[in-house]
């Protein structure tokens, strides 16, 4: 099931199962980190790295904070629902703009009803967080791909203003 807003060409690919592979990189980019999410402490490092990357790319303090907060929630979702996974953070440079892309991947149980999970306030785990709608509001583009029993990939992007 897919639920998207805006276009995220990096999310999934046209070719293979989007739940399996990393997005194809045409060239190596130093402004990219992958943080394994295995414990609650990894939530902290994931959001701190996102903040550092965003500030380094010239994002405002406010936007860097929005991105870091979104990463914190995505990492927390991984711990709560899938127990482990990873968060990829990278700076992307288009012809006329710079953005940061966050990809949260896990091999957990998946989300059975993505549409419902995207409803405001809907959460299946002890009301921690407001879940994905809140993350979507923090970012510019948001896409989620989830398959029951296989896992979830959330791709979110924010452009530098």
């Amino acid at each position: 099931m897919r639920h998207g807003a805006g276009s995220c060409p990096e999310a999934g690919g046209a070719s293979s199962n989007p739940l399996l592979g990393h997005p194809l990189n045409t060239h190596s980019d130093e402004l990219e980190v992958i943080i394994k999410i295995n414990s609650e402490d990894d939530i902290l490092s994931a959001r701190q790295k996102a903040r550092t990357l965003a500030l380094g790319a010239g994002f405002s303090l406010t936007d860097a904070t929005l991105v870091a907060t979104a990463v914190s929630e995505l990492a927390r979702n991984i711990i709560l629902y899938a127990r482990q996974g990873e968060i990829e953070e990278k700076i992307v440079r288009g012809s006329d703009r710079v953005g940061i892309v966050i990809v949260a991947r896990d091999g957990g149980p998946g989300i059975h009803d993505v549409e419902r999970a995207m409803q405001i306030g809907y959460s299946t785990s002890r009301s921690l967080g407001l879940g994905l709608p809140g993350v979507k509001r923090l970012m510019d583009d948001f896409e989620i791909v989830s398959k029951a029993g296989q896992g979830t990939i959330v791709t979110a992007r924010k452009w530098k203003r």
Partner: protein
Amino acid sequence: MAAPVILKQGKFLIASMQPAPSDADLVLLRNALVQQVSRSRSRGVIIDVTSLDVIDSFATRTLRDIAHMIRLRGAETVIVGIQPEVAFAMVQLGLVLEDVATTLDLEEGIAYLDVKTAK
């Protein structure tokens, strides 16, 4: 993060949060404050979050829990120093502190508690 720094000042406790607390640090702070507020017979608790660059759902929930627990112990809590960009992110995310008091800074927090606990 090291153990939470909690100072007793007059009839209030002041907890200054260190930067980048983990979930475990937040829980430590909660437990320490709930214990100490009665042991020190404090009338109010100030939690200074000036140094926090992110307040996410877990931090928000823990701060709310602390305030409610402190109230059950017969004292008042005020959260001080939420940074402007942090406030912006919290609202965008939809996080609410509900009925928990907040003030701009420590000075305002003390003034708030002075009024609130005056008899």
